């Protein structure tokens, strides 16, 4: 309802206020969503780097002359102290590193877990395949996996 001069009065301002408030709300919400997504991505990248650093430490130890020594063998991997190797380079809240034989048999060779994985919201994962001498002279495939949170 407008008077002859086209003045809407107070009740015209209410829908204007509603539109403006709604627009501001949508902008602020989108900004919060975007900043949270960027933050989560940075944390995920950080965890991936942490997992890779642990993996590098473990595989370097495996391949070094002072590590399991000479030719990698499944028997030597079973006796590895993964936690001692990984704690030196760990820069995350928790991690789980595992050495698993995939070929010719499927066997868990060594594992170490630090922290509680059940509370992890974001994780970083890294893996590497290596060859190892198995019983009988065959060459098997071993996978080193690291999950960081």
């Amino acid at each position, binding site marked *: 309802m407008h008077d002859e001069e086209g*003045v809407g009065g107070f009740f015209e301002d209410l829908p204007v206020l509603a539109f403006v408030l709604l627009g501001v709300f949508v902008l602020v919400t989108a900004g919060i969503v975007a900043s949270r997504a960027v933050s989560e991505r940075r944390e995920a990248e950080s965890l991936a780097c942490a997992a890779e650093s642990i993996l590098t430490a473990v595989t370097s130890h495996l391949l070094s002359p002072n590590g399991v020594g000479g030719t990698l063998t499944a028997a030597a991997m079973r006796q590895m102290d993964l936690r001692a190797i990984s704690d030196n380079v760990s820069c995350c809240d928790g991690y789980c590193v595992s050495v698993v034989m995939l070929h010719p048999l499927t066997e868990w060779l060594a594992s170490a877990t630090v922290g509680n994985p059940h509370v992890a919201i974001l994780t970083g994962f890294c893996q590497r395949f290596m060859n190892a001498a198995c019983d009988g002279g065959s060459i098997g495939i071993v996978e080193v996996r690291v999950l960081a949170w």
Partner: protein
Amino acid sequence: MPGDLPRDKAGQLALLDAMVFFSIAMLVSSILVLQTEACSDAAVGISDGSPTSVGGMLAALMTASIGQPVKIDLGPGLTVLGQESVAECLSAELYALGSGSGPALFAELNEAVLGLLDSLTLAAFRGWLVAVHPEGSWEAPTLAIPGLPLASSLSYAASCQLPCEDGALYTVTLVLQPAASSELV
């Protein structure tokens, strides 16, 4: 008198301004959220298929022993005892295929290689091993286990050179693709 402000005869200017502002706010917010999702999708990497992982997988696969005895009926007979490396077995097979031998002779060997490849691959992925002659093409490879990879927008691959007895240097490529949803258990 309340609301006694100078306006035009229609009295709609403020409301239209607010609607334009709201439309622009919706547009900007949509672009912001879509761009954030696109960047997040691009950043999410499936670790099993990362280039570094596929290269390491291929190297470990080629160096590993075949793991089981395989009989290949090549005239005088050729028996793989199980400790021969996958690279040696594939090299012999490629040489025989290049000399005119039929692919059916190596079905058991190819099955063993495929089983080994499946043991390395996560359930969410499928693996293919393709060997191409230096003068050949991807569409007509000398060997493809279990076949040629499907056309996919998401593939991870690594390759290496494999020499054969006749001096040819084959290119062996390992391709990983997400398994079709119907194949997932």
